[in-house]
């Protein structure tokens, strides 16, 4: 889709200003109902578009994403503009600098039209923990879009923007992509700079694209990846043009299905059916699909929910009301911390901060955090073993389709189980993509089903190539 729009801009069939105005019109028409955006920056977007049009008129070459409207999750810094993480704790906070991804995209002339809703500080799987608004699934507005990148996903799925940026710590790009029927890519940990992404869990957070097609995901990844001196954990590997690897061919690729893991209880019948059809389609396209063992994969979820809250409790310590954000005065400094955090942080954030504080506290560290990091080694080893035999691992993205609002908010554990297949990739650090594999009926409504492919560390090439070939055929 991006390539086609790029050609139209280049050939003068459409101007960037008209394109941006068109998408802003869709936002005006639909977003009252869908609630994907927390803020829309019409003026700045049109100004960027005008500059791009001038450049085209003067006969200059333009970049692939230049002049094309996109949205970013509201946990990425845009200099001088509000960034809330959908939390009351950051209401009114203005980012002092651009996130590296935003800086790169600005330099390319990509047109940021707004910031999108999310679970508060990216903690959630339904976008319901946002302190500001509900975001609705465009396929059935009584259902959640998934999360935490629910706003970015809906913005793309409903045609409010051409593509969007999300962040993924345990499935926050892939799970909503699956729920809304689009493509979501979580790159290898370190592939994309996290500088200027407000941290949730630093050892797992990764920025990635939400797009209509796999090719679009490859285009966006090419634009945002690469080493960044400002993020010491960013990988020292040069940015590549990932579209070059999209051959439309997957003949001979070896795909492993962790059968025991996929067949575990709790996967909807409709999802299993679509999944088995997808397996057959991969076979039909020349892939060699075989069953594999990932014995420790089932422990990825408990490991995740120890490691993430631990890192969360540390990352959230900065919200003390002294240097930025909401500040509630107390009798003394310490009392102010208690009151500020009670007022600024939502229920799920508090829950994770407390869980992490407990897991890291004296006497429990070995039993929880250290144990979890050891099991994480075993999960990584599982993948190392699997990748001796296969190139990619295939699972459903989620065990269920998009669920109705409020159906899991009372039971945090139930909400966490929505991440069962996606967290594995974050625990192992591998790249993973969710792509549509059909629909499944739930209560009479056809809802999208996502398939997930996981690749080898830093092998986004094969991941994108195979997902693209599946999508094209």
């Amino acid at each position: 889709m991006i390539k086609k729009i790029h050609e139209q801009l280049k050939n003068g069939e459409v101007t960037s200003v008209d394109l941006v105005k068109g998408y802003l019109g869709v936002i005006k028409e639909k977003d009252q109902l869908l609630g994907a955006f927390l803020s829309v920056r019409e003026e700045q977007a049109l100004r960027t578009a005008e500059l791009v049009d001038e450049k085209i008129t003067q006969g200059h070459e333009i970049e692939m994403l230049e002049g094309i409207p996109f949205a970013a999750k509201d946990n990425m810094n845009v200099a001088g503009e509000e960034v809330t993480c959908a939390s009351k704790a950051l209401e009114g906070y203005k980012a002092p600098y651009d996130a590296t991804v935003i800086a790169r995209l600005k330099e390319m002339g990509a047109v940021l039209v707004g910031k999108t809703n999310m679970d508060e500080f990216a903690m959630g799987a339904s976008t319901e923990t946002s302190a500001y608004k509900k975001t609705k699934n465009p396929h059935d507005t009584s259902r959640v879009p998934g999360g935490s990148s629910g706003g970015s996903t809906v913005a793309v799925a409903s045609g409010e923007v051409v593509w969007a940026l999300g962040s993924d710590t345990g499935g926050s790009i892939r799970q909503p992509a699956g729920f809304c029927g689009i493509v979501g890519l979580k790159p290898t940990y370190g592939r994309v700079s996290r500088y200027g992404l407000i941290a949730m869990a630093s050892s797992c957070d990764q920025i990635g694209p939400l797009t209509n097609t796999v090719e679009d995901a490859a285009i966006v990844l090419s634009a945002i990846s690469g080493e960044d001196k400002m993020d010491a954990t960013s990988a020292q590997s040069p940015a590549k043009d990932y579209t070059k690897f999209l051959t439309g061919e997957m003949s001979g690729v070896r795909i492993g299905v962790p059968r025991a893991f996929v067949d575990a209880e709790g996967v909807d019948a409709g999802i299993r059916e679509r999944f088995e059809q997808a397996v057959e389609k991969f076979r039909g396209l020349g892939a060699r699909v075989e069953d594999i063992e990932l014995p420790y994969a089932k422990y990825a979820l408990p490991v995740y929910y120890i490691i993430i809250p631990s890192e969360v409790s540390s990352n959230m310590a900065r919200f003390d009301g002294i240097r930025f954000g909401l500040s509630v005065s107390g009798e003394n400094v310490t009392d102010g911390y208690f009151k500020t955090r009670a007022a600024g942080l939502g229920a799920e954030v508090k829950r994770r901060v407390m869980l992490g504080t407990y897991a890291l506290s004296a006497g429990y560290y070995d039993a929880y955090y250290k144990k979890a990091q050891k099991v994480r080694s075993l999960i990584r080893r599982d993948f190392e073993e699997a990748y001796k035999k296969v190139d990619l691992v295939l699972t459903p993205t989620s065990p269920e389709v998009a669920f109705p609002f409020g159906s899991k908010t009372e039971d945090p554990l139930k909400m966490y189980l929505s991440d069962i297949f996606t967290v594995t990739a974050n625990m192992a650090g591998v790249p993973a993509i969710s792509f549509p594999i059909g629909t499944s009926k739930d209560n009479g409504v056809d809802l999208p089903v996502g398939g997930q492919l996981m690749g080898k560390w830093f092998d986004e090439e094969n991941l994108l190539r195979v997902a693209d070939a599946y999508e094209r055929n």
Partner: protein
Amino acid sequence: MLTKEEVEHIAELARIELTQEETTKYQKDLSSILAYFEQLQEIDTNNVEPIGHITGMTNMYREDREEEFGDLGRKEIMENVPDTKDNFIRVKAVL
């Protein structure tokens, strides 16, 4: 089940003021999540090293040189501070 006192102690460490209602809720929530973690105890992790960095990166160093930032970012950062005096951050007396 975590006791009320245990939840209050955790909240104290986390610097979060809880209402009675929240304390009761977190008692239940945290206990059920901690019970879910129990399954990890069945795994033998003797002789397993904990993960440090997931793709195996070690010790990244920045260049060892001095940088002069001057007033770069000062205005933008200070504008976000809730309480200031003479361009300093003001806090209540600590001692």
